[in-house]
């Protein structure tokens, strides 16, 4: 397996080795496809144009098109700092992220949105060459940019391909947003670095048709998307390998996929480590082997500590204090809880920050507690937070009948020691804050409640 030092190395090498072979299949590419040679040429032309334009930091509002991919590669080749933004974010949020990343140039295929974003450009940067910024939810109320490089992203793709190789004859369907590191590395780079064709999904409107249209053999997916494709029977018969990441996956779904003859792997990683550091390759999907460059140890409190020297972030953008809080001497404090089994495989059991320490010193593991609450109240639109040192139930407005809630809570509380019983019900007037993959943004919710800003 070839190991690439960056995007330029990837594009030039693959153009030399597999020049006329398809690199990107996309609705917006001429004749639906770009070969590796055409991809290199398009990226170099974009780089030339960007250099001539004189910008220092390009914010790319990702739409998953071939033009978008070309612009990202071109920006890095031009030596600009490159910021990947999720095109589905609200306009105001995008404008904030553009300013926060100092972008002085914007690429956005949506003309109306581009116009709105151009109203507030950033100031530009010095020494941004090679930096690629991904925004992550982080652990504070503000979205935070993680500084990666094309070298760290390529190292991550290599790491993954060493554990789970893609064949040059494969077609990898990329339905995930490129502004998320899992989508960028596993949806795009993983296939390209193996010489496979990457089919760029045509967006949410075509989720139900893309498998039949592109006939992929490999599919990286988040649990929600994979569950939808399975339930609606939308997977194509050529599909052989599914890589699931960015969230927990119900075992029934995995069993169903395997019963359908699919090879299903599960990945674990963080934006801070340029995507995956561990993958399951056979047997137990939750027992993940560490990738070649990565090592893990478990702290006394159960937190997973990672060393990923080739894939580790440079830090959080312009936030050395936040960087220092999680990255010390090359060791990343992940905030995840887990253990290593006898074979050295990593198992993730939950989030450290999903543990509430109560006033009486006892602890609640929120996912388990909330699952029981959901079953009792027959709604998933809830969360548990700390209020005055006691557990409080946050309930989305109109998600459950008040009388039924109180009756169900009485029975629920009876299962727990007094200190761990729900002490208050806090109505929440809107949808609970969640990530794109459906994970609860507990930190955000707790901060909103603490500061009365909901």
């Amino acid at each position, binding site marked *: 397996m070839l190991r690439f030092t960056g995007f330029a190395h990837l594009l030039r090498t693959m153009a030399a080795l597999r020049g006329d072979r398809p690199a990107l299949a996309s609705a917006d590419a001429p004749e639906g496809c770009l070969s590796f040679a055409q991809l290199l040429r398009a990226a170099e032309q974009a780089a030339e144009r960007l250099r001539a334009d004189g910008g220092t930091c390009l914010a790319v509002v990702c739409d998953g098109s071939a033009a978008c991919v070309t612009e990202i590669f071109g920006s890095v080749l031009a030596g600009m700092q490159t910021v990947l933004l999720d095109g589905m974010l609200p306009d105001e949020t995008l404008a904030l992220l553009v300013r926060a990343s100092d972008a002085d140039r914007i690429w956005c295929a*949506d003309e109306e*949105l581009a116009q709105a974003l151009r109203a507030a450009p950033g100031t530009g940067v010095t020494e941004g060459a090679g930096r690629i910024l991904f925004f992550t939810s982080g652990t504070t109320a503000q979205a935070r940019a993680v500084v990666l490089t094309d070298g760290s992203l390529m190292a991550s793709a290599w790491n993954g391909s060493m554990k789970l190789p893609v064949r040059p004859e494969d077609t990898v369907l990329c339905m995930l947003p490129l502004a998320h590191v899992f989508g960028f590395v596993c949806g795009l780079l993983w296939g390209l670095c193996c010489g496979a064709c990457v089919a760029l999904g045509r*967006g949410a*409107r075509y989720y139900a048709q893309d498998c039949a249209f592109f006939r992929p053999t490999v599919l990286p997916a988040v649990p929600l998307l994979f*569950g939808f494709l399975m339930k609606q029977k939308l997977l194509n018969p050529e599909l052989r390998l599914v890589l699931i990441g960015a969230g927990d996956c119900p075992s029934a779904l995995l069993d169903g996929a395997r019963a359908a003859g699919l090879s299903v792997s599960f990945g674990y990683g963080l934006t801070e480590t340029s995507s995956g550091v561990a993958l399951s390759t056979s047997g137990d999907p939750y027992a993940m082997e560490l990738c070649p460059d990565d090592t893990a140890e478990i702290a006394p409190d159960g937190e997973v500590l990672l060393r990923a020297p080739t894939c580790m972030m440079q830090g959080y953008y312009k936030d050395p204090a936040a960087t220092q809080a999680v990255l010390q001497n090359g060791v990343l404090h992940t905030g995840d809880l887990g253990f290593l089994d006898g074979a050295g495989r990593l198992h993730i059991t939950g989030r450290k920050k999903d543990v509430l320490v109560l006033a009486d010193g006892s602890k609640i593991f929120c996912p388990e507690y909330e699952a029981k609450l959901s079953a009792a109240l027959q709604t998933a639109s809830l969360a548990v937070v700390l209020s005055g040192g006691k557990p409080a139930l946050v309930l989305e407005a109109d998600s459950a009948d008040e009388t039924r809630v109180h009756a169900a809570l009485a029975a629920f509380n009876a299962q727990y020691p007094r200190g761990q019983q729900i002490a208050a019900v806090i109505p929440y007037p809107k949808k609970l804050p969640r990530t794109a993959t*459906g994970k609860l943004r507990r930190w955000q919710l707790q901060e909103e409640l603490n500061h009365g800003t909901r």
Partner: protein
Amino acid sequence: MERAEILEQTKKVIYDCLPELDGTELTEASVVNTDMGMDSMNFILVICKLEALFDVKIPNRQWQKLSTLGDVVDAIIKYKK
């Protein structure tokens, strides 16, 4: 097509896509996420079926702004023009 007719056809699509809603009264004020328990993937499925049914294209970036059944009907009417 009258608004009431669009609303009725929209409800039928939702009931078809989410059979678990059978017996649940849907109104213009029904909230997509909470009242209908629709996750983001099911929401996409419903919108795509509605677009095909009404021969309309609602821009992707507008999807996230559709909070209630009434919002969905409004969008169909707006973009059908």
